[in-house]
């Protein structure tokens, strides 16, 4: 069982603005709305086998070198060459130079031997992802079955917002929830058609507009959700047009949509603003996290396209720089290729050269 995670009453060192007052006021009843496939008996590896497989490439990249390093069973401190290889392995996986250099430097100062490297890295990465100091809920997508749940999905062009929304809608519908999708991408050609296909597949309602006013779609969706009276457990997912974070006017538009949400949502609601980040993104993801956070009070990250040879290192970099938890992971193009982010499994997946 998990409870609604409130950033505002967590011990998170978050520098981001705190949750909306509506969220912070009280704990809602809750239930597990995790990945429906979690209960599948897909063997010992369970629900995370998909992610494990997806991370294979990353691990080959990250641990290919660590493996030769850790093969040295002596207790000698790592030499300069080994430390450099360690640093480079992290850089290759998009951990970012700062984090890679810092970790290598720590390893040097502690005089770690090859054998100690993996436990050290595991612990440090857990710390970065908030898996040590935070409750395990840090990475959980908030949901309350006694209130309206609003998921505001933002990101740059081509990050995978629409696909993620389709998968998310599918998950909630699979749990018998009413799902309304607001087609807020009024800019890209055929964006509404694409979302329409996903809504149909998932069995969700779709709210569209005849105008190009994205804020109006948000308004209509929130009204539709509340018109029937009982909103308990209902879900509104808001799609937005992809926008590069340096486009001031487009970021303003997001702010406007956010204000409509604040105004039109019932007093008690769950608000999650998810930044969708393509896992192949490099250092620019940091700038994305920063600017989008300012515009819409981000509550988490959805890391997409983590299948294939994608890396996941950027998740650590975002978590470290902006204290933003990764909450969802997209691992394929099928409608159920959506996983909850599990920091422990993710790190183990990165570091465990057994398995597979």
């Amino acid at each position, binding site marked *: 069982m998990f409870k609604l995670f409130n950033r505002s009453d967590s011990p998170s060192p978050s520098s981001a603005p705190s949750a909306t007052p509506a969220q912070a006021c009280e704990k809602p009843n809750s239930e597990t709305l995790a990945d429906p496939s979690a209960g599948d008996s897909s063997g010992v590896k369970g629900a995370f086998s998909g992610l494990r497989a997806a991370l294979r*490439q990353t691990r080959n990249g990250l641990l290919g070198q660590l493996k030769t390093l850790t093969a040295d069973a002596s207790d000698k401190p790592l030499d300069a060459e080994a430390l450099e290889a360690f640093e*480079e392995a992290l*850089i*290759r*996986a*998009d951990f*970012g*130079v700062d984090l890679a250099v810092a970790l290598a430097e720590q390893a040097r100062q502690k005089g770690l031997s090859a054998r100690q490297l993996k436990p050290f890295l595991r612990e440090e990465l857990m710390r970065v992802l908030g898996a040590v100091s935070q409750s395990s809920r840090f990475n959980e997508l908030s949901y309350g079955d006694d209130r309206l749940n609003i998921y505001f999905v933002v990101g*740059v*062009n*081509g*990050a*995978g917002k629409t696909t993620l929304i*389709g998968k998310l809608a599918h998950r909630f519908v699979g749990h018998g929830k009413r799902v309304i999708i607001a087609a807020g991408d009024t*800019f*890209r*050609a*055929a*964006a509404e*058609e*694409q979302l*329409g*296909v*996903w809504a149909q597949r998932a069995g969700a309602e779709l709210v569209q507009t005849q105008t190009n006013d994205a804020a109006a779609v948000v308004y209509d969706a929130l009204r539709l959700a509340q018109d029937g009276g009982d909103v308990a457990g209902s879900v509104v997912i808001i799609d937005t047009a992809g926008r*590069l*974070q*340096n*486009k001031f006017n487009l970021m303003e538009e997001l702010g406007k949509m956010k204000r409509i949400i604040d105004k039109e949502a019932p007093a008690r609601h769950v608000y999650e603003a998810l930044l969708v980040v*393509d896992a*192949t*993104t*490099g*250092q*620019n*993801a940091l*700038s994305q996290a920063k600017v989008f956070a300012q515009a819409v009070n981000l509550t988490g990250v959805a890391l997409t*396209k983590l*299948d*294939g*040879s*994608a*890396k996941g*290192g*950027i998740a650590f970099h975002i978590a470290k720089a902006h204290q933003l938890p990764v909450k969802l992971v997209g691992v394929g*193009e099928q409608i159920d290729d959506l996983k909850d982010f599990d920091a422990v499994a993710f790190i183990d997946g990165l570091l465990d050269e057994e398995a597979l």
Partner: protein
Amino acid sequence: MLETLSDRLQQTLRFGTGKTLTLENMDDALKDVRRALLEADVSLRVVKEFIGRVREKAEGEAVLKSVNPGQQLVKVVHDELVHLLGETYAPLNLDEGSPNIIMMFGLQGSGKTTTSGKLARRLRKAGHNPLMIAADVYRPAAVDQLVALGKQLGIDTFSIAGSTDVQQIARQGLDKAKAEGFSHVIIDTAGRLQVDTDMMAELLLLERSFKPHEKLLVIDAMTGQEAIHVAEAFNTQLSVTGMVLTKLDGDARGGAALSVVSVTGKPIKLVGLSEKMDGLQDFHPDRLAGRILGMGDVVSLVEKAQSAIDEDEAKAIEAKMRKNEFSLEDFMKMQRMLKKLGSLDQILGMLPIPGLTKEMREMVAHGGEGQLKRIEAMINSMTPEERRQPDLIKKSRAQRIARGSGTKPEDVTQFLQMFEMMRAMMGGLTRASDQAKSGDQAGAEASMNKTMHSAMGQLMGKKGKKGKKNKMKGFPGMPGMPGMPGMPGFPSLPGGGKGGGFPFK
């Protein structure tokens, strides 16, 4: 904000083993280069090769002996980047077939469909008659998207409703193009991962069947370390003919470009710069190089400075500063050198100052240039003697100068006060810099503090005295301290020592 490579190199080299780049401090400097490239998302493997090339060049005497090795090294890096990015420059092959076949492919979300639309528009503008073929049968509504773009642009699009047979779609589209006399076809394919063997096989089949004249890999400018694997895999399997770098209108440094060019040896042919349909441009290696290094167009500024600044004169001026003999004549000489670099607006535009908009730049430059003109007029109204010994200028001389330059006597005194302060500071800074270079850190700091202190003291003291005087003599309406925005056009000095320093940090 990311530090620019120039800033970082200056720090590294400033207090290093000396003011020149040596074989000893080369490693530290190259570490900065490495970091800058990695932060711009150049793949590590490419960075390593690249650093090797830069080291070779830098170890040549040109850099070691240059007057400002930090800037010089940046230039070597920049030139090498341009060289690598542009060496294989080639335009689109547009006139080989009838029709010409252009195939677009890449990862999901890289921007293939949008780029297809833009490319079609561009071709039509060039007088061609393109047809777009919608072969992305997987992503929901991808075909609709291309058709909608076609409608918007007035360009024909071929698609087969409901078909998932990519071969058939391409075949029939091509037949239509031939029958109806289209000059170009653009095949928009589905996004795919380079490790997805089934999907790669689909592309391979298309490639074998239709022998496209252009096989364009579409790459997102924000791609990280993965870029190298993506480009390598697509190129190995499909032997791409060129690449399109998209979303370059964002704020990504775009280092992925270097990775993909260097690993494939294939050129970037186009860049996507906007969501609007006209946002597709030719690729400019020099612009991208500057962007990767996060340095605005500092390099052209360096080059301009090198040609504009007379080294002997710069040396002479510096010597005078050291001895506190810097005169208004020298000031004018310096201004003239700076002017050769271009207008203040132009200079500001070449500097990588975050958040400096065009409007702000023009405003600052406008105020600054007006100020400079007035100052120039004042100096021109002085006798040579006064220029060499500004102390001579008292009330009556100031009045004469004001009349001659169309300014007020207060403006003249004010300018002279600022000049005096500046002169004191420059002398102190030059000495501090000498001490720092000789390794006397404490001495350098002491000199620096003393300089700041005395300069401030001088300003405050003079101000106080003047205020009193004014009061006593009852000057009404003394215009306080009107807008003297620092000393425009007088940036940091050739602190590098041997003259020929550059008028920016």
